[in-house]
């Protein structure tokens, strides 16, 4: 007998009391969405900034390897999106559009259509996500309502830069993935 059959038939041989699947109420928080989102991102060790603040940071930092998939900032790109993700090894900045953000935890939803290459937001040294301030949702419940019907092969709630506290619980930003996250609210 195959393991598949064995596992399923073992489970089916048990008398298991029926239990109804509960409905999930539409929980929501209170307070200004932009303010709460900004606080959440900063708690996750990212930074929310305006368009002008971002442009100032970018113009003074002297990056030479930049990929931008955000139409608003396409002129900042110095490199096209490569075919092979291994070419991202020395990428300094990736600029992407986020679909929407969640105020309660700062999570930003991204799918294949925003990412170009799935490795892009992880492999880049610095990540910039451009987000419409009117796209913010209250809690993760509303977030999942919004993506209920999407079919993207890969989807991601990204909430901050790569971080770790595995050495004596000291928080270090920039473990294996992006060393910083900047969210540009437009």
């Amino acid at each position: 007998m195959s393991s598949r059959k064995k596992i399923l038939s073992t489970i089916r041989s048990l008398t298991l009391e029926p239990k109804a699947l509960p409905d999930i109420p539409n929980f929501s928080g209170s307070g200004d969405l932009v303010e709460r989102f900004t606080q959440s991102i900063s708690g996750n060790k990212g930074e929310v900034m305006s368009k002008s603040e971002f442009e100032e940071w970018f113009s003074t930092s002297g990056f030479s390897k930049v990929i931008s998939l955000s139409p608003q900032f396409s002129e900042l790109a110095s490199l096209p999106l490569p075919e092979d993700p291994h070419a991202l090894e020395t990428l300094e900045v990736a600029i992407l559009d986020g679909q929407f953000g969640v105020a309660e935890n700062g999570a930003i939803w991204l799918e294949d259509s925003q990412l170009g290459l799935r490795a892009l937001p992880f492999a880049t040294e610095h990540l910039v996500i451009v987000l419409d301030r009117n796209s913010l949702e209250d809690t993760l419940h509303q977030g999942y309502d919004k993506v209920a019907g999407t079919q993207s092969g890969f989807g991601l709630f990204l909430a901050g830069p790569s971080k770790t506290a595995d050495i004596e619980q000291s928080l270090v930003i920039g473990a294996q993935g992006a060393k910083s996250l900047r969210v540009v609210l437009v």
Partner: protein
Amino acid sequence: MTHPENAAEFLKDSEKSKWHDETLWFVRDKRDKVSKGIPEWEQLRELASGIKDNVLANLADYLEEFERNATKNGIIVHWAADSEEHNRLVLEILQQQNCKAVVKSKSILTEECHLNPYLEKHGVDVVDTDLGERIVQFLNQPPSHIVLPAIHLKKREISELFHEKLQTEKGNEDPAYLTQAARVHLREKFFAAKVAITGVNFGIAETGEFVVCTNEGNADMGVHLADVHIACMGIEKILPRRKDLGVFLRLLARSATGQPITNYNSHFRNPSPGKEIHIILVDNGRTAQLAREKFRNSLKCIRCGACMNTCPIYRRSGGFSYNSTVPGPIGSILSPGLDLKKHSSLPFASTLCGSCTDVCPVKINIHEQLYEWRQEVTKTQGEFAKGLSMKLANGIFKSPLAYKISGSLMRNALKSLPNSLIYHPLNIWGKNRNLPDPPTESFQQWYRKNRS
């Protein structure tokens, strides 16, 4: 070795064990604070528990639904009855790819199956890419905590280790410096690996997708650069609907580390063009646990580690004292189901204070199950260490005269006996405890003097 013997070993370094205790309590405290920011927190726990009840009651149907949808999406689904089959399936996929080096993100299931030694025996180099896991892998140790794998180590030890393994400066203990060295080392591995292995936090029956959560981004670094992604999932990790993730992701990181969400929460539905995703659905004792009515809902566990951080025994005895892949309170109710003889001391590694049950995001009645396992252990193994003194006490409490005499004897004895005898190894109540100063008179004597 039993839990008390291992715990005694851990407590020998009193400074480190105190740090361990306080640090985990700090994490527990962060969990309290962040959970109090969510007014519906208790409702979320109730919902999560209810959703998992429904999953366990319909597990076969949900597994088939998951398989059907995942297959439709282009994910290759495998089934493994036990750890041997799981390991063999992983190896077969690696051999098909002609892959001799693999990167792996955190997966308690692969620890449970002892995948690393199996692959290494077959000539495959495995690199654990979670920083804490890489540290313990360098030391040839298992993780001591399911969320904080290297919590038993101090930065001085990690500095020495990295000096040896990664050629960092001798004596440089700066966590940022050490993390940067690991970053360079691990990124080299990510960019070279053809196959990446991950665990699975949640599998969604409705969509056939699965979700992997990390803070370091190491799971994603591995799988998006590799040609083949192998995901290893216990069959209990199923959720019915995508929207159930709203409940579970709100609970998971808050319970685990006190953060509102992990920084990377990746939903895998199909492979990138030209790549492959395999998922292995593993039983390895889970259907047996499902059959045990009293212990069934231990399968609701989402591996957040909150019960470890809060447990007064875990904090003071360290993860290794449990000698079990999943340590702490939840491990002490899961592991006896896998091997009752080996893990017979674990249900006793608890004060039954119930704090684990109070913090569990899916409301597993952990302390009640610990009590139930004790009954199972005594049924199969008979008398325990405390048996003799319990029998003696039983005789004394039965007879009023014996009680009176023994009370006065003990009061005098505790005053006059040398400590070497009171804290003799045979008196396990005196171990790591200071006995209170004996009162000068019995309660009866006091009552006669003051109240009659």
